[in-house]
């Protein structure tokens, strides 16, 4: 039984068609690289899976259980063990690190008052032991705007680590991370795999996706146009496939425009 199965997913935003019949599966303990050009529908697909918005049409199964799209939400996804690191990082930069880490899942007493000491201590532990922030020199009270791009990414990933998700969806920010910071992201994915978890990894850098994924799913204009297991394709071949796709798309658009 796959961990996640999405069948015939369609999504329209008004008259814009973002997804047109996508089938997407993630197995237990599998890293899936989701690739495709800008506007291919990658972010839309993972936002549906994360509960940010419902599909216009289609079915979703998580751990074999059919999901009612009207009841599905980010909270429900979290409850089912699906954690997403969004491209936008989903951080409030004026708020402290600990507030960001626990946003939406704040430790609180029965009346809803925050357990601030607990939240700060746990954040500090995570920052020091797992995220390895500047040797622990950063306070959990520091506002996120004072952090570097990579550290911000670390806070977003920290959520997924802290809450021990079964499936982590990583939409890598297009804003460039340093080589070291990218290595951290890749190591995080490897750790997930070692712990028996699953991951969907979106990146524009094929070398990164290739380095960690078990399987690749290629999206183009809202459709799955290719699916390869890692042993079926080499990195240069995968690159070649994408370049061809890009060229055929450019050609089609050129013909559409000139006709």
């Amino acid at each position, binding site marked *: 039984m796959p961990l996640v199965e999405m069948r015939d997913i369609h999504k329209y935003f008004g008259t814009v068609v973002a997804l047109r019949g996508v089938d997407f599966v993630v197995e237990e303990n599998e890293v899936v690289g989701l690739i495709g050009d800008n506007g291919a529908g990658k972010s839309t697909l993972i936002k549906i899976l*994360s*509960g*940010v918005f419902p599909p216009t049409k289609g079915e979703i199964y998580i751990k074999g259980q059919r999901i009612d799209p009207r009841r599905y*939400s*980010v*909270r429900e996804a*979290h409850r089912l063990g699906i954690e*997403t690191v*969004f491209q*936008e*990082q*989903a*951080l*409030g*930069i*004026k*708020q402290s690190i600990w*507030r960001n880490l626990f*946003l*939406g899942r*704040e430790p*609180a007493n029965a009346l*809803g*008052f*925050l357990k*601030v*000491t607990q939240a*700060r*201590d746990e954040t*500090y532990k995570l920052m020091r032991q797992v995220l390895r922030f500047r040797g622990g020199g950063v*306070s*959990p009270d520091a*506002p996120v*705007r*004072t952090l570097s791009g990579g550290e911000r990414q670390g806070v977003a990933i920290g959520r997924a680590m802290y809450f021990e998700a079964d499936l982590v969806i990583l939409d890598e920010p297009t804003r460039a991370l340093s080589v070291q910071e990218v290595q951290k992201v890749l190591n995080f994915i490897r750790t997930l795999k070692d712990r028996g978890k699953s991951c969907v990894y979106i990146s524009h850098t094929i070398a990164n996706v290739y380095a960690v994924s078990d399987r690749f799913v290629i999206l183009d204009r809202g459709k799955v146009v290719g699916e390869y297991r890692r042993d079926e394709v080499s990195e240069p071949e995968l690159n070649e496939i994408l370049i061809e796709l890009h060229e055929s798309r450019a050609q089609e658009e050129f013909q559409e425009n000139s006709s």
Partner: protein
Amino acid sequence: MIKTSFDLRKYKMQIGLILIIGLVILLFIITSPEVFLRPSIYLAYLTTIPFVGIMGLGLTFVLASGEIDLSFASVMAFAGYVCAVMVDLTGSVTVGIIGGLLSGAVIGALNGLFIRKIGIPSIVVTLGMMFLIRGAVNLLSGGLGKSLTFLIGTPWHSILVGKIGGRFPAHALWFLALAVVLWFVLFRHRFGNHVLFSGDNEGAAWMMGINVDWVKIKVFILMGILAAFAGIIDSFRLLKWWPTMGEGFLLTTFASVFVGGTSMFGGEATILGTFIGAYLIGSLEAGIVAAGLSGFWTRFIYGFLILVAVTIHTILRKGRES
């Protein structure tokens, strides 16, 4: 464990404000010692300032959530009217108070629904609501005030606006208590956390499962209830309700909140700042008049103080970023 050392730098804005208040009072003592060396002027401040202050607390939440409200001064009058009429009809002060607070909550909810469910910017919705509610108050009351002298001696009158020890106004304590409770709600409660994130980065809040629409609607309901409470206690204090109640409070409330250090941009707010700001703004007029300057100076000095305070807040905030 992390050291939770008390960091003075974190409170430099508030410390600065207290210094400014000290300076202003000192200036008033020098210019009119016969007024400012006696306790009665300070008791007068405690009597008059809480109304603006309580609405300022609500406005702090609204601004923290990234929205704005222009209708609360009209809500103040409306709720006072509803309360007075319901006391007339039922003979029960309790029912009147509940009715007044509910009317504020309903107007707040309407503001929130128009803003979040229809998608009209808050400045436009609440501008409309400001006129609509003020108009409704005038139409319903026929432009006439209502006497509330029968409230004298009732328990609610003593609880809300009585004089403790014959001098100290009870509503000053209500303002203080509300400030403390709302500080905990904003900075130590889930709801406040969601308010701050809704104002900071609405998209992020949605992506982390916060229903931003509902959070903001609740903020407007809170604002409505606080404005209603201010209206009820103001009419109780004066034993009279009148249809122009709250006119002139709109801008002083904004002035108090901005001088206090809450930002227009959302996601950042200070309850302590609003509390101090209300007393600072509220103390100016009496001091200016006592100093022998004409009332014309008041606005000029308000304006000067707002510009200086907001400039300092903004520079301090930028300093923290780098």
